[in-house]
């Protein structure tokens, strides 16, 4: 190369513009991002041809795991804070401010009322490993009813979405539906995966 006496041309490009683009996109993603919170149990939804979308807000989600445990999800942190305040009063759980704060950070939960305080007092790591046995939904002690009723009074526009694992038994689903119907909630949105519509023939 030296013999030909050509100047070694630098292959470096001006990266400034690219950098600008990268960080612009990055800002966009950070601002629009909503972190995926790992679910406490397996919820593998069945697929359907429906193309309606679940709104981001005003959703009370009831999830049924493959083992039949019932979980409740409220996406908005502020709503969860109000919810736990009311529930604490209603069931006199004796939670302190710290517990309530912790509760407002948990998006999906499924513990019986009597376990709630213990559950909130666990350290974050332990709580992740803790096996949540689901919200109690017996006919004599229907805690799901309490949760949903309070959530509904705090936010009257909330829609009830049900996310069931494909292998969960219909019996649990039936109980959940019956619970909602007792409160005159008759419209449900069942969360499903996407499946292509077969051509009509």
């Amino acid at each position, binding site marked *: 190369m030296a013999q030909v006496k050509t100047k*070694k*041309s*630098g*292959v*470096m*490009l*001006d*990266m*400034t513009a*690219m*950098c600008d683009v*990268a*960080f612009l*996109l*990055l800002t966009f*993603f*950070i601002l*629009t*991002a*909503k*972190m*995926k919170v790992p679910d406490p149990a397996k919820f593998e939804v*069945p*697929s*359907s*041809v*429906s193309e*309606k*979308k*679940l*709104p981001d807000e005003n959703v009370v989600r009831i999830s*049924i795991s493959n083992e039949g445990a019932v979980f409740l999800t409220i996406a908005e942190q502020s709503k969860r804070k109000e919810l736990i305040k009311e529930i604490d009063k209603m069931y006199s759980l004796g939670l302190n401010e710290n517990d309530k704060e912790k509760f407002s950070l948990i998006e999906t939960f499924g513990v019986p009322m009597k376990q709630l305080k213990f559950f909130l007092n666990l350290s974050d790591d332990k709580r992740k490993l803790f096996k949540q046995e689901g919200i109690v939904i017996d006919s004599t002690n229907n805690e799901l009813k309490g949760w949903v009723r309070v959530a509904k009074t705090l936010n009257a526009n909330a829609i009830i*979405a049900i*996310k*069931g694992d*494909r*292998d*969960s*038994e*219909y*019996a649990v*689903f*039936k109980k959940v*539906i019956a619970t909602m*119907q*007792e409160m*005159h909630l*008759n*419209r*449900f*949105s*069942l*969360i*499903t*995966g*996407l*499946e292509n*519509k*077969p051509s*009509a023939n």
Partner: protein
Amino acid sequence: MSEIAQKEGGGGKGASKGRKKASTRVDMTPMVDLGFLLITFFMLTTTLSKQQIMLLPMPNKEKDKPKTESEIKESNAMTVILGENDQIYWYISKNRVPDFHTTSYDPADENGIRKVLLEKTKNPDMNVIIKAMDKASYQNVIDVIDEIHIVNAQHYALIDITKDDEELVKKQSAVNDAASN
């Protein structure tokens, strides 16, 4: 940029002399790398698409009860029963035994539930009544409602199963077992 390349090629001599006007240009490559790395991370952790939903309106429990078999014309009510282990049965007539059919979820099956529903719901007054046994999986329930949406049936309802129906299923599965053996 090419200036930097040259300068670096000189092994920093120029800088030590301090005579050359120092370039203010910075190599942005690592910064771009970092930027795209973070973008990738955020894209992967973001729930990109919203979840799909299927609407399920249920009848009010006390008032305006759903039309059950007794209230609608018998020939206009098709009952689909979902059993355990992905079993599915259907009947129309009330004196059901000869009319009680076993079918499947397979859309390709000639006697599958989709073909049956398609055939039966040509009658616009046909009501499809879904009765799931407790052991049926949630997947089955969604599948059937989905099939109903696919064939565009207008009237359907999800109703609790009765003892009668469970008996019929038991009988039918015994018959099926005997046939398969």
